């Protein structure tokens, strides 16, 4: 299992290969990539700034991974989150879950994202095309999604 916070972009194939390349016991790999949308419910977004709480982010992501490893028979897990200034179309987050069978991989990846969205200390600030900035508000449906796993 592995967690990372970085400013640089990531490559889906390279990260997957690094995580499970050469293994013969992995039958199913689910990846989730989150990207900056150019339009957030009608508001045009030119940049998105990701702030985080260094050390706590890694600690919290490690706790989330640990919980997933206890719930599902996973062979490998990666959570990678970018910080800093991003623009529309850029990658924000990558989650990879690998298992022998597909259901565990799908459920674990979905769980990891739900928990990441509600527990890992990241905050998004949107800057619109007009230059004005606003902090993205947490969504109740993200809490509901995380509550599914209790």
């Amino acid at each position, binding site marked *: 299992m592995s967690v990372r916070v970085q400013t640089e972009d990531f490559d889906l194939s390279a990260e997957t290969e690094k995580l499970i390349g050469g293994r013969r016991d992995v039958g199913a790999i689910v990846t989730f990539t989150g990207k900056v949308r150019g339009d957030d419910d009608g508001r045009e977004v030119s940049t998105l700034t990701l702030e985080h709480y260094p050390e706590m982010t890694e600690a*919290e992501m490690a706790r989330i991974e640990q919980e997933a490893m206890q719930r599902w028979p996973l062979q490998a897990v990666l959570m990678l989150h970018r910080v800093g200034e991003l623009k529309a179309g850029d990658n924000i987050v990558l989650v990879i879950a690998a298992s022998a069978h597909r259901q565990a991989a799908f459920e674990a990846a979905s769980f990891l994202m739900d928990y990441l*969205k509600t527990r*890992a*200390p*990241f*905050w998004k600030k949107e800057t619109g095309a007009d230059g004005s900035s606003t*902090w993205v*508000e*947490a969504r109740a449906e993200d809490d509901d999604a995380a509550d599914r796993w209790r």
Partner: protein
Amino acid sequence: MSADATRRVRLLYFAWVREKIGLATEDVDLPPDVATVEALVAWLKQRGEGYDEAFARPQVVRAALDKVHVKPSAAIGAAREIAFFPPVTGG
């Protein structure tokens, strides 16, 4: 450490909590009667307008003790680092 001694802790603020307070981090001497996170919030609110604004809706602001999420009722105990921030919006 006697029961009524102050204790130095580091406070961290993130996102709009940081912006309203105007500081990312500060070291404060916790009065002995400030034993819980919510007591600390009440104490901070009296320190100035920025703090008062940041904690205007105290139930919205989240807290962590030594990098672990806690509820407002949590005892500060021996924590060295106390962070306040809005609900998280990563992912």
